[in-house]
């Protein structure tokens, strides 16, 4: 599966993921605690510069990912034009765009492996309280592997439906889809058990 990490290599790809996530937390809190238009515009300009530095492809790709937000920008502007506080509307819309863009920036410059390493480090103290870290890692790997498998099976069921009916597949197609997933789960669980299950680490 493709992750959302940008294929355009930037210097930020090499920075430690934990530091990037920490900085993102601080920046987001500051953004939401400073309700001034001037500050928000300056912050937006900074983030825009960060997007522009790695080059045109990165810049365009980054802006594309903000597209679902334009709906909210529109709603906010209309709302505040009607209530007569357009400047406040501009501040809120600007803050929303900056906050999301900044968070996307971290996602775009951090590999899945680096993110996982941070999660692992954060979860390690929990192992003492009986949380099975190996089970969590195994589950993560299974989701990554099975999402495309299930998507393919779902698409096959839809196609089978279309071969028989003239209309688009309806909700009924989800029933065999769920049954398939439940059966798969039983088979995989048996296979997993036969190979040592979730307790491998403790036995070593």
């Amino acid at each position, binding site marked *: 599966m493709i*992750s*959302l990490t940008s294929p355009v290599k930037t210097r930020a790809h090499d920075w430690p993921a934990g530091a990037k996530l920490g900085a993102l937390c601080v920046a987001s809190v500051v953004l939401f605690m400073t309700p001034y238009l001037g500050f928000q515009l300056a912050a937006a300009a900074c983030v825009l510069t960060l997007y522009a530095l790695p080059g045109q492809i990165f810049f365009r790709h980054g802006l594309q990912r903000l597209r679902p937000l334009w709906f909210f920008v529109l709603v906010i502007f209309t709302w505040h034009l009607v209530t007569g506080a357009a400047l406040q509307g501009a501040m809120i819309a600007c803050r929303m765009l900056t906050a999301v*863009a900044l968070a996307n920036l971290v996602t775009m410059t951090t590999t899945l492996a680096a993110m996982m390493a941070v999660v692992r480090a954060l979860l390690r103290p929990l192992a003492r309280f009986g949380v099975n870290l190996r089970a969590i890692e195994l*589950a993560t790997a299974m989701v990554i592997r099975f999402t495309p498998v*299930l998507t393919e*099976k779902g*698409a096959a069921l839809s196609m089978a439906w279309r071969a028989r009916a003239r209309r688009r597949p*309806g909700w009924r197609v989800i029933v065999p889809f*769920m049954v398939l997933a439940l059966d798969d*789960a039983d088979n995989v669980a048996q296979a997993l058990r036969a190979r040592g299950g979730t307790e491998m680490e403790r036995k070593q």
Partner: protein
Amino acid sequence: MTQERSLVQIALFAALIAALGLIPPLALGFGVPITAQSLGIMLCGTVLGARRGGLAALLFIALVALGLPLLSGGRGGLGLFVSPTVGFLIGFPVAAFVTGYVMERLANLQAVLAAGVAAVVGGVFVLYAFGIVGMSVALDKTLVEAALLVTAFIPGDLVKAALAALITAAVYRARPDSVLSRA
């Protein structure tokens, strides 16, 4: 019930939520295409029960946060957690948990009725409660104003709750042992 079976079911249902968002939108009875992702959240609860259903949804949003494009439309990443819809995302595991909890409480009721009630309570009430709070914070609106912004989507989700009930009942007929909320 082995530990492995629970683990695999949690993982596969997390993948199922993603797959329901990735397959082409299904047509509802009256031809309106829907993405089935929030339907997946309800089904996690009604089929797997409170604990496993909640964990499946939690695993799903954790992987979205790590940067996998699992949300409908191939969206994902940390940006979603500061966007106006953050409440719905964070509400997913709680909604699945509550759906499963209600389902387990209503063990005496027919499967289709129990699943319907559970899906409305968890998948609509609880999910929208989170969604509205998230939107009010992100857009600096009062709770009432934020609620106004999302009311348009409630009828669609009520329809999904009804579908979740029918699907759960059908799955229960096909694989009674696998529907953990009733096992």
